[in-house]
């Protein structure tokens, strides 16, 4: 658990760092832990807390040390577990400072109207008051951790004074941070590739993806199950053949039956997700691909356009369920809500329809 003792060889490979969500977050570590994290031997500027790669942090603490330089402030921030130096750059607005003596004078054009120059001055003053802190004031800093002259410090990318007269913010922070540690920082990262998961589940999701990719790449409008059946063959054939090599063929589901079963499940998933639907339910199983079904798109568009002209829907637009029942009446009884939502999404991204509020659509 003590990070200082971690063996450099145990460092996770840099290729995997980006997979750790903590890597791209501003971690709210205690200052004590920031000071104790080990620096990476592969890439300086990256640190490890519990094998989590970390390079930027988020700290709240009392200023206990303060130095001002021409371009930056140096604040020592104490969060009750440690003290760390924070390098806080002054921004340009801050540096263009005029003499404070001029502040008091009201400008000549001050007639109570909107005066951009005066407003900018006000903004500048507000900014300065948030950036210049005295000892004892509360500072929030976010930024990457750096080591300069063997001293850890935070290179602030944002920093500001926190007004916390009754400590409400500090208390909330103190309550939250241990939870973050328990739920994220102290949990080891588990990178389990999907392949080791349940094979039955993964073959189903693999099969679904294969069909989805096929429909997308070939811009298929409609298909029958036996059109796509062969695509799933590679998923089925490998396992049973291995088994039957050293055993006598046993009475069980044959490869063909397995294939049918898998295809049936995949088609069910695709229907549930609204990616395909059956326009007519008949012996002849024809599946229409929602995204490539121009007739459906036009039908939905027409319904919305016509109905949004009606007084009842003019103001708010048509509700999804209203559109759904209209589509079922006029176009096909079997269009599912999921399929309709896909259609609406694609119409909306083409600006053919506009969503007015949650689940309401209109067209012009």
């Amino acid at each position, binding site marked *: *658990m*003590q990070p200082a003792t971690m063996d450099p060889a145990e460092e996770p490979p840099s290729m995997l760092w980006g997979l750790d969500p903590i890597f791209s977050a501003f971690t709210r570590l205690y*200052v*004590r832990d920031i000071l104790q994290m080990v620096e990476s031997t592969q890439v300086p500027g990256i640190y490890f807390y519990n094998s989590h790669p970390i390079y930027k942090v988020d700290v709240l603490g*009392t200023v*206990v*040390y303060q130095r001002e330089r021409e371009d930056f402030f140096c604040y*020592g921030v*104490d*969060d*009750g*577990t*440690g*003290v*760390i*130096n924070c390098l806080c750059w002054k921004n340009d607005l801050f540096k263009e400072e005029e003499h404070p003596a001029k502040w008091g004078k009201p400008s000549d054009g001050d007639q109570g109207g909107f005066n951009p120059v005066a407003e900018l001055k006000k903004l500048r003053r507000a900014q300065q008051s948030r950036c210049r802190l005295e*000892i*004892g004031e509360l500072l929030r800093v976010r930024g990457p951790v750096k080591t300069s002259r063997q001293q850890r410090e935070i290179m602030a990318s944002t920093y500001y004074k926190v007004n916390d*007269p*009754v*400590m*409400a913010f*500090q*208390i909330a922070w*103190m*309550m939250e*941070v*241990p939870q973050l*540690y*328990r739920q994220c920082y*102290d949990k080891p990262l588990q990178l389990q590739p999907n392949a080791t998961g349940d094979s039955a589940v993964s073959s189903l999701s693999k099969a679904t993806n294969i069909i989805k990719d096929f429909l997308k790449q070939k811009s298929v409008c409609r298909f029958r199950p036996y059109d796509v059946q062969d695509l799933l063959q590679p998923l089925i054939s490998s396992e049973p053949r291995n088994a039957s090599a050293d055993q006598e063929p046993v009475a069980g589901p044959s490869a063909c039956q397995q294939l049918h079963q898998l295809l049936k499940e995949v088609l069910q998933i695709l229907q549930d997700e609204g990616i395909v639907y059956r326009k007519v339910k008949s012996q002849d199983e024809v599946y229409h691909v929602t995204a490539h079904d121009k007739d459906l798109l036009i039908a939905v568009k027409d319904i919305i356009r016509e109905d949004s002209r009606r007084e009842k829907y003019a103001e708010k637009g048509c509700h999804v369920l209203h559109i759904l029942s209209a589509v079922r009446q006029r176009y096909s009884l079997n269009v599912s809500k999921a399929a309709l939502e896909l259609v609406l999404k694609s119409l909306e991204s083409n600006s053919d329809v506009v969503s007015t509020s949650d689940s309401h659509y209109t067209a012009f």
Partner: protein
Amino acid sequence: MLPAATVFHFPWEIYNGAVQEGESVRVFGRLVCYQPEESRATLSAQHASKEHHVFVHTLFVEPFNPIIGAQYLVLGEIEKAEGVGVMVRARVLNCVDGVNVALLQKAINEQRSFFRERDDAAQPEHAT
């Protein structure tokens, strides 16, 4: 160059030997008395039906506006002076009147129990 970290302590822990001289602490309490001529403030807190006092040396934070009866938070070092006993030499003295003391205590305990948990978890690892 940087001062030591000030660790939260309850007012009733200052005198029971839990903190050593020179240790950096942060303590809260209600200001009950201020003697500017001696630079001495007294904070008070109720705990277990007893009233506990903390003496604060305020030379470094003067002048400040003493509000008798208000809650204050002090950051400083423990000092043992002759005749006075244990006192906190304040580096920071903030008025935090209106603070939810019960919630603050809870937050401090929360933080402590987290560190205790983590240290306990780390201990067996070192033993092996």
